[in-house]
């Protein structure tokens, strides 16, 4: 990688966005899971559910703080590092960001304080409403951010204005009801729900393995596995919806994900595994499953999906068309109102491809001076790194199916096998805790890296989007963010682990007293002796959070 401002700005954006995205998925899912638990508490009045709400709420809070803190960077980084991008598409892209602030972030941030401080100040129902408002706010937040991101993938409802040298919004509803944005939203929030479910499942499994907080852990597994199963199914189904919409809007990204070099007669096969080689334009050792790709991408057996080589040829045609638009634009800019009508008409006819002409700016100041070779090069640039997205996509999908299997298993054991979980399964649940984060980051990577060389697909090349900064500026902030974020990460992890080890510590006496009474009632109803030994089957030790040392604060 060349050490220039654009590449460093990309690196910094990737670093800060992917770091931010470590906290976002857990916030999205845990906010809902906590609200569900509090709902059960309010409906049943059982203290154990309040304890669960507070315990998972505390972990939510630790995670939320860093999500908010790192989100501040994102809001300003477009202006700091991507000033031409901000100028060029701010008229459209800025709106969903501002709406996110107004509709979503305000909601979650205002009520999250009351969630933690309001237990004694609010009625039960009011506090429950607060918990749900936090959850709704967080999830709305994702909606607006993905509408903004969806527009970068599929820029609808906007056109170029030669007078202001930027894209301007022509239809607000096209922007918010962008099909790509809708599919991405549900896919992303579902991924967040899976992340939180796997997290909750893993932590609870660890408690069961240690024989601690059994009541809390089992109920948490019941909630997490049911919610996680629905979410894991939704991730895959909506991921498929994303693929379907990509086949119509981002053909190059889809072709790169599939490492599909040549257009295949319909229905195209799905390359399950292989080694894409960009120079040779072929995929070595490809294992293909016939028909599947055609079905996913087009939901038909007759529609063709274009391959990379064909799309490069199309890009070259678009570049030439874009050059006509660029030439007309230069006249319009100097003549303004005196521009001859035929030049205006020429511009209108070709303005959709203006972005392709801008691809040449990497090589020449004035795209009209580009040589044939440079045009061919620019067309070739429209192919993203094939092998990275090919592999990232496959790992992500593999993990997605794994989550379905895991959730299905635990849901089955929790619902139909009396909450008995074999130790190997519990160990497995602990081991896969990091997996959803890997899947989420890979998903981000496929989506954003797969969009290259564009910041806004077909409209604005990445190479043109960055700010006028020096390499030194970038090195300073890159080093600063790396150091700062690493320290925060260590602190965050340490706190998370500390509070997971500590376990629930609020309302312990009240909850334990209730648990004992509750067990007593259950046994009496069964006609069993309430004071008989509770040494039932191993792994099902029924009670008491208070008996083991972990329940009291260790420090």
């Amino acid at each position: 990688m060349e050490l220039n401002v654009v590449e460093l700005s990309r690196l910094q954006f990737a670093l800060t966005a992917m770091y931010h995205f470590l906290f976002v998925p857990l916030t999205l899912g845990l906010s809902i899971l906590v609200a569900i638990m509090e709902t059960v508490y309010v409906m049943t009045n059982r203290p154990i559910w309040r304890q669960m709400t507070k315990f998972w709420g505390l972990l939510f809070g630790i995670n939320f703080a860093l999500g908010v803190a790192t989100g501040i960077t994102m809001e300003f980084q477009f202006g700091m590092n991507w000033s031409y991008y901000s100028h060029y598409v701010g008229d459209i892209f800025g709106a969903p960001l501002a709406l996110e602030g107004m509709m979503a972030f305000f909601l979650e941030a205002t009520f999250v304080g009351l969630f933690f401080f309001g237990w004694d100040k609010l009625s039960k129902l009011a506090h429950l409403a607060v918990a749900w408002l936090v959850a709704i706010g967080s999830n709305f937040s994702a909606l607006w951010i993905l509408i903004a991101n969806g527009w970068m993938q599929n820029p609808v409802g906007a056109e170029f204005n030669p007078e202001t040298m930027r894209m301007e919004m022509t239809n607000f509803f096209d922007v918010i009801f962008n099909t790509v944005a809708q599919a991405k939203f549900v896919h992303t929030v579902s991924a967040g729900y899976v992340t939180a479910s796997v997290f909750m499942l893993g932590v609870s499994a660890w408690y069961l393995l240690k024989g601690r907080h059994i009541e809390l852990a089992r109920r948490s597994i019941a909630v997490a596995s049911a919610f996680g199963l629905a979410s894991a199914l939704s991730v895959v189904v909506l991921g498929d919806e994303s693929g379907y919409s990509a086949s119509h809007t981002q053909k190059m990204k889809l072709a790169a994900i599939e490492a599909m070099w040549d257009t295949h007669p319909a229905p195209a096969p799905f390359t399950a595994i292989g080694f894409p080689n960009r120079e040779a334009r072929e995929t070595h050792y490809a294992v293909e499953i016939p028909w599947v790709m055609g079905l996913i991408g087009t939901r038909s057996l007759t529609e063709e999906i274009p391959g990379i080589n064909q799309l490069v040829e199309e890009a070259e045609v678009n570049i030439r068309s874009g050059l006509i638009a660029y030439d007309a634009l230069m006249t319009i800019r100097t003549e303004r109102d005196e521009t001859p009508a035929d030049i205006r008409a020429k511009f209108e006819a070709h303005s959709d491809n203006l972005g392709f002409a801008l691809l040449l700016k990497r090589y020449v100041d004035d795209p009209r001076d580009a040589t044939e070779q440079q045009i061919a090069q620019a067309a070739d640039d429209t192919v993203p790194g094939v092998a990275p997205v090919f592999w990232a996509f496959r790992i992500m999908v593999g993990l997605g199916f794994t989550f379905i299997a895991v959730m299905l298993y635990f849901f089955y054991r929790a619902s139909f096998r009396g909450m008995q979980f074999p130790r190997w399964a519990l160990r497995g649940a602990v081991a896969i805790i990091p997996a959803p984060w890997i899947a989420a980051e890979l998903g981000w990577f496929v989506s954003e890296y797969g969009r290259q060389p564009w910041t806004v697909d077909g409209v604005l090349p990445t190479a043109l989007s960055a700010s006028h900064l020096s390499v030194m500026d970038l090195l300073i902030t890159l080093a600063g963010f790396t150091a700062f974020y690493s320290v925060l990460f260590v602190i965050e992890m340490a706190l998370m682990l500390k509070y997971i080890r500590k376990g629930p510590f609020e309302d312990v006496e009240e909850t334990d007293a209730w648990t004992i009474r509750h067990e007593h009632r259950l046994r009496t109803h069964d006609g069993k002796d309430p004071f008989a030994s509770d040494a039932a089957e191993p792994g099902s030790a029924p009670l008491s959070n208070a008996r083991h040392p972990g329940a009291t604060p260790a420090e």
Partner: protein
Amino acid sequence: MILSDLIELETLRVIWWALMGVLLIAFALTDGFDMGVGTLLPFVAKTDVERRIVINTVGPVWEGNQVWFILGGGAIFAAWPPLYAASFSGFYLAMFALLAALILRPVAFKYRSKRESTAWRAGWDRALFVGSSVPALLFGVAVGNVLLGVPFYLTDDLMPMYEGNFAMKFLGLLRPFALLAGVVSLSMLVMHGAAWLSLKAEGPLAARARAIGTYAGMIAAATYALAGLWLAVGIDGFAIQGEVVRDGPSNPLYSTVIHGGSWLSAYSDRPWIAIAPLMGFVGIALAVLGLRAGREVSTLLWSKLAITGIISSVGLTMFPFILPSTVRPDSSLTVWDASSSHLTLFVMLVAGAIFLPIIMAYTAWVYKVLWGKVTEDDVSEQSY
């Protein structure tokens, strides 16, 4: 869309200019006391319990307050894209420092009381101080720089460019006048934080806050007056030359701007704007008197009046300029040539008209729930 023609572009631009001011003021009024309280923390609280009380006066609300800043950023992006593009990249390293400070704050709030260790807590207390005082100072420095003009220009493609090397991007901002403006904002927010503590805390803690707040108020008044004087005698203003087109396309290069004359000529053109600095001085005076007399609610309101006046005075003095350029004045951004399109301004105005009242309503409800003094008994396991 025909609906958007209901309001003329010129009117929308003025409304959005005012709304940008409203958002900045809302941020200063709410998150302003958080920053003031964070700055006061090492000086007013002597024991860990006192420190926890101080932090808990803002603990449940700072997160919501901070959203005014995020929303301000988003609104500038949506309504004034050229300003968003030119200012944040021009102030690059200063923005980084600001972000780092602002990131420290939420983390410090959340993590401080999660461990008993004294060193751990002392470390986060310092982080809170830095995360509160540095932004409070830098916001003023940024405003001072905007008044002085920024060394940027726009290419024919409207790409913002800067003169000066990377070190200048930060050190170059620390010009004497800008630093003075920084002192105004820092002292003003410390006064505001003191007014908040006087309302939310009791006993010696509140007394200490009031004592420091009194001095901060006096410094704010003195530096604000000095800055006004400096503007009158030592700093050139900017003016649009020739016919002013108010509803033209948002291309700053279409207008001609001269760097010269005085910013304060605005006060002879529009004498009514003198009400803003007047509000500033009167607000500070009454807030200082209130702090001395130990009045609580009214002091906070006077402090709010002072902040509203001081921030408004900057905007009203510069109108219609929002980011003047020193190196090529023609590139200066004004209300008339740096906005979003007609449609975007209209859509965002509709959204703002719906959601800002809702936000204010539920924020008011949250403050009502949390009304009352924070005492030693309130500082429990769940708090900061």
